[in-house]
């Protein structure tokens, strides 16, 4: 039974996956992860993962659902054998109704009962097979997906920083789907194709050896033709997809810039450009579509020829007994087999490209799963409870890329409650200090200590709970305002959330939202202004009540009035906490207990604003060039 839904869109997925293969192996190549000791056995595997290994690992995910797998294969085999038996019974039935008065009802009745029973059984098995494969593949997909996502929460931040998020997301979504569709369903189809071919051969040869040879010899024709046509159309499909991509790019660019196009009265020229690509797409598309539409009529044509051939030779056989003595029913059997025999071959060629694509996807998923993880906490790691907030950098060196040292010999000592302002040109390593403090990255040399405990000797969780962080880009997730503020403390009551929001100067605008604290924010905080988003993030930290703050001030002014509130909220937040601020505002810098002036990964000056201005060094220069005006 042909399934018209089975082979939709395989071409597209093949190309989609081919293009994603470039950065397969770079998950393991992560510097700044504590050197070679972080490799986890699989380590520096730059070799492409072998097919066998992929199969073994996919099977590892299938194993919990082994019952389903076995059931689907058994059901599939049963269906095929039964289905192939049907034409034989029909043929025999026809042989029992030879002519007027020559119908053998005594034999026909049980035969038909048998036929009916077999059909019912075949249907049940087929349903069972479809059901099992479906369940198997979606449950496996689910497991694989949960693992892939979980991995993303465990990998060192470097992995997330270095990889395009789109690529990682597509591994969790598209690639995993592809494994389900292609590998599981594809493999089942491959299996049933092979069983069908074997079964057909078996039944044909048991019915009549010479006739079986006729069918077997004639069918390669059909396969050759199908293969040739696929080759032709694939070529022009690739070309079509290239131009289609070009066209989409053009549309995206120009429709996206429609306001610009309008303002410049550029419309006519934009249309000319579009039409040119559109014409090219027509030429290629017409050709590609024509070629690809040939495959069905083409195979049908060859099949028709074979059909006629089998019919003619069969009839000659009935009459002359050469090449084989046959009955009409047997000719009918061969006619249906001739029809059925070529189909699995065509299906297999289709499925194979799907399976190849699935293998590529599976590799991409497994490479993600093989990415190194953060080094686990040491067994004797201590819990930082109620930290005082003393922070010390002791001759710290760090580089993201080996050989290109970013931080060099950093020494900082912050007593509990001190405000430290980090100042310097962009790219001087200010944000990196934050990455190191939270152990998003580990230092290469030296040591960072909190309350006298080296970071590496504390549990990551307790360490991170000691810190509160407000970054320039405020992160909000899809959920209510309450949930977003309570992110650091899920059990916080509404009162606590409101109190934190009030302290963060966010209460007023939250109450003005349609549903107040229960307003659902879209991903990224959608409708809120940048300043309001930041206020929410401050409230979040306020609620978490950490001992040490890491703040990254916004560089550009967003909205003057909200900004004043943000500023006030920052001040409120910093009361009584040790704070490190990547500072852009003059007021923040002036009020700091210690300004750390960074340049090229070193701390070149330190001290208060007045001290540093008086010293007339780099800070004074920086201050004069950026704060003083040319006018």
């Amino acid at each position, binding site marked *: *039974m042909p*399934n018209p839904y089975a082979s939709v869109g395989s071409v597209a997925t093949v190309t989609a996956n081919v293009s994603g293969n470039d950065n397969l192996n770079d998950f393991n190549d992560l510097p700044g992860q504590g050197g070679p000791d972080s490799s986890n056995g699989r380590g520096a595997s730059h070799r492409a993962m072998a097919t066998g290994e992929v199969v073994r690992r996919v099977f590892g995910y299938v194993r919990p659902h082994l019952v389903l797998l076995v059931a689907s294969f058994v059901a599939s085999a049963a269906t095929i054998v039964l289905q192939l038996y049907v034409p034989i019974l029909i043929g025999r039935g026809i042989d029992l*109704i030879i*002519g007027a008065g020559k*119908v053998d009802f005594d034999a026909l*009745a049980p035969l038909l009962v048998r*036929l009916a029973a077999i*059909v*019912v059984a*075949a*249907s049940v098995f*087929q*349903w069972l097979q*479809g059901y099992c494969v*479906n369940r198997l593949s*979606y449950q496996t*997909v689910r497991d694989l997906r949960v693992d892939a*996502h979980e991995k993303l929460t465990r990998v060192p*931040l470097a992995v997330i920083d270095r990889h395009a998020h789109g690529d990682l*997301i597509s591994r969790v*979504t598209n690639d995993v789907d592809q494994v389900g569709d292609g590998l599981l369903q594809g493999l089942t189809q491959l299996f049933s194709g092979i069983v069908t071919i074997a079964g057909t051969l078996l039944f044909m040869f048991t019915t009549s050896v010479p006739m079986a040879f006729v069918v077997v010899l004639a069918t390669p024709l059909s396969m050759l033709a199908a293969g040739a046509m696929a080759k032709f159309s694939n070529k022009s499909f690739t070309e079509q997809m290239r131009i289609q991509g070009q066209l989409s*790019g053009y*549309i*995206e660019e120009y*429709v996206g810039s429609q306001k610009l196009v*309008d*303002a*410049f009265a550029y419309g006519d020229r*934009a*249309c000319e450009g579009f039409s040119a690509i559109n*014409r090219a797409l027509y030429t290629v598309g*017409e050709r590609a579509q*024509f070629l690809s*539409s040939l495959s069905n*009529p083409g195979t049908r044509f060859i099949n*028709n020829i074979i059909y006629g051939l089998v019919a*003619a030779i069969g*009839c000659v056989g009935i*009459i002359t007994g050469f090449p084989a003595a046959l009955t009409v029913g047997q000719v*009918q059997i061969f006619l249906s087999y001739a029809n059925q025999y070529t189909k699995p071959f065509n299906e297999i060629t289709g499925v194979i490209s799907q399976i190849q694509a699935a293998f590529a996807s599976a590799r991409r998923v497994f490479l993600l799963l093989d990415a190194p993880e953060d080094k686990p906490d040491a067994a004797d790691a201590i819990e930082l409870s109620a930290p005082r907030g003393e922070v010390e950098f002791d001759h710290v060196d760090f580089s993201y890329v080996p050989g290109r040292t970013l931080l060099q010999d950093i020494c900082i000592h912050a007593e509990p*409650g001190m*405000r430290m302002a980090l100042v310097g040109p962009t790219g001087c390593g200010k944000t990196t200090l934050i990455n190191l403090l939270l152990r998003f990255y580990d230092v290469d040399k030296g040591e960072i200590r909190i309350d006298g405990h080296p970071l590496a000797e504390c549990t*990551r969780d307790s360490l991170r709970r000691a810190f509160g*962080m407000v970054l320039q880009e405020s*992160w909000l997730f899809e959920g209510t305002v309450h949930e977003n503020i309570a*992110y650091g403390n899920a059990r916080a009551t509404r009162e606590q959330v409101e109190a934190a929001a009030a302290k963060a100067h966010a209460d007023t605008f939250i109450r003005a939202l349609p549903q107040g604290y229960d307003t659902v924010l879209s991903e990224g905080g959608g409708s809120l202004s940048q300043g309001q988003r930041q206020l929410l993030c401050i409230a979040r930290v306020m609620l*978490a009540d950490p001992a040490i703050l890491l703040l990254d001030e916004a560089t550009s*002014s967003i*909205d003057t*009035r909200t900004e*004043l*509130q943000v500023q006030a909220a920052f*001040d409120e937040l910093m*009361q009584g906490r040790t704070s490190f601020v990547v500072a852009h505002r*003059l*007021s*923040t810098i*002036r009020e700091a*207990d210690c300004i750390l002036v960074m340049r090229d990964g070193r701390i070149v000056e330190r001290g208060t604003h007045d001290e540093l201005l008086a010293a007339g060094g780099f800070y004074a220069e920086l201050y004069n060039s950026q704060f003083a*005006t040319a006018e």
Partner: protein
Amino acid sequence: MFELLKQFAPPYRRCIVVGPLCKLVEVVFDLLTPLVIARMIDQGIATHRVDLVIHFGCVLAVMALVGFGFTLVCQKMAARASQGMGTDMRDALFFHINTLSHAEIDQFGTPSLITRITSDVNQVQLAVALGIRQLVRFPLLAVGSMVAALLIDIKLGLIFLVATPLIGGIFWVVMARCIPFFKQMQQKLDRIALVTREGLSGARVVRAFVREDHERERFRIAADEQAGVAIAVGRLTSVLNPATLLIMDGAVCAILWAGGIQVDAGELTQGQVLAFVNYMTQTLLAIVYVANLVVVFTKASASAVRIREVLDRTTSITSPSVQGRAEQEGACAAVGAERSDVDGARTGAAAACAGASGSGITAGATPAAFPALRMDKATFAFAGASGNALQDVSLELPTGGTLGVIGGTGSGKSTLVNLIPRLYDVTSGRVEVFGRDVRAWPLEQLRRAIGMVPQQAQLLSGTVRSNLQWRRADASDDELWHALETAQAADFVRALPAGLDAPVESGGKNFSGGQRQRLTIARALVGNPQVLILDDSASALDFKTDAALRSAVEKLDLTTVIVSQRVSSVQDADLICVLHHGKVVGLGTHEHLLEDCAIYREIAVSQLGGSGASGATVSSQLAGRVDSTPSQLDGWTAPNASAEPQPDTSNTPVPSHLDDEGGVSGNA
């Protein structure tokens, strides 16, 4: 769908007729095949004549060959018609979108428009192709087989009449129940992507708050839901194939039994029963394909609706009607004359324009009589929005003057300047440019007179030259360099290896933010605009470049509108308009506004500090130390707002260091 086809099918009428006709031939041959085989068996075998068998065999081969030939023609016609119609639709869509105004484009949204031109058109294209190729084939095959079978024997045909609707019915029910699931499945997949994306973009926050478990749980729920829906769909669709098989082979059983009775009675021959079985199989298979077609057409008609939505949307912003044109021809000539001027001998051109027409869009034509820009109670609301984005804006700017527009995010600054080149039309009130309502100007002429630098510094892929030539396709290198000099961009463009021919990637990604901004400014200056609009266009420039830019633009003697969040950028303007929530809360010069406008003063205080803001109240609000800061802290928002209440520190421990510095956070 039909309306869409009616619009786009006519040029391909021949293909659409010839294609299915050719297919018809193949179908007829397909239908005849079982009959020929029946003959072969009944006649050839009955008479034991091998030559007859071979004769019929050859007939089969010829039929196959001829059928294939006709199909080729049909496939070609289908490809030509569907791809042709798709191409025409894309052209029509793209051209039409170009005529739409911002108001309409905003309603659709850019991503939606892109999907409509690409995948929706593809969907319709596919339906057209399948329509030509299969709409005839499968229903005809089904009906034809049925007819042929009925011709063999009416009584056996009854079995058909039961089996066919049964299969059709099953497909109908299953597909109808699946379609809502398909939508759900997409939503669940989107959710999975969303949770993953949030987890990645917020990786630092998730880890800093130690909420990895929470994220895992969120994802697990999303994944479970997706698997649940997918399995439910699978449960439904896995019924289809076995049901078809069951009905088909069940019917064969019935045919064999009933046929056996008739053969026994001599009413039928063995070959006829065989043919009957073959027809039966063909019909039922054809029905399966028809069901597939139904799915394709359902999808396509949804797409067709989405395409029509765009094509049926007429623009709200149109050029004035033809009768108004004649009147303006003089003005066209004047602008044309100026456009041909290359080297920027503006005054000469302006004089020429003044001679050509009194009411033309010409700088300096009749400066006293007509202000360059006048707004009279201009009010604008975005479609579907509850409030006005701009309300009752009235102002007047003389030719050659500079207007500064300042206000917080969302105060309506960009909306205000978008009304000038009619990117939006006012909801009520009016906007006049050079003494004439903008709606009375021929659209292209109006826009050619205005050089616009939008807020987003957007470049398109091509070269520096192709981007700069947007306003004038044949602008000479001299003119381009001149514009680049004014925009402070000449230096870095000169430093590019290919100079003006340096490639620009999509969106201008290969240039820094500041470089992009300067290029977009230069782009607006090419082609001698009479009005220059800078919509927050210097935000990425450092102070020196910004100042140099402004003084270079001043020398051009253009009517200029500057939108900014920086007081420093607008303080020298002849007129400053302070917007707050879409309303004008202050209008006047810098000094004037410092005195009268509380909001302007607040902005000035937060940005400029004491010496820039000279009002008495301002100074009193400032901490003493601020007075020592230089007048302009460009891009630096200085000192902490005394305007805001100071946090109450009584219940939080005061860090000791505060004492050292003494009153760091205090007021003066």
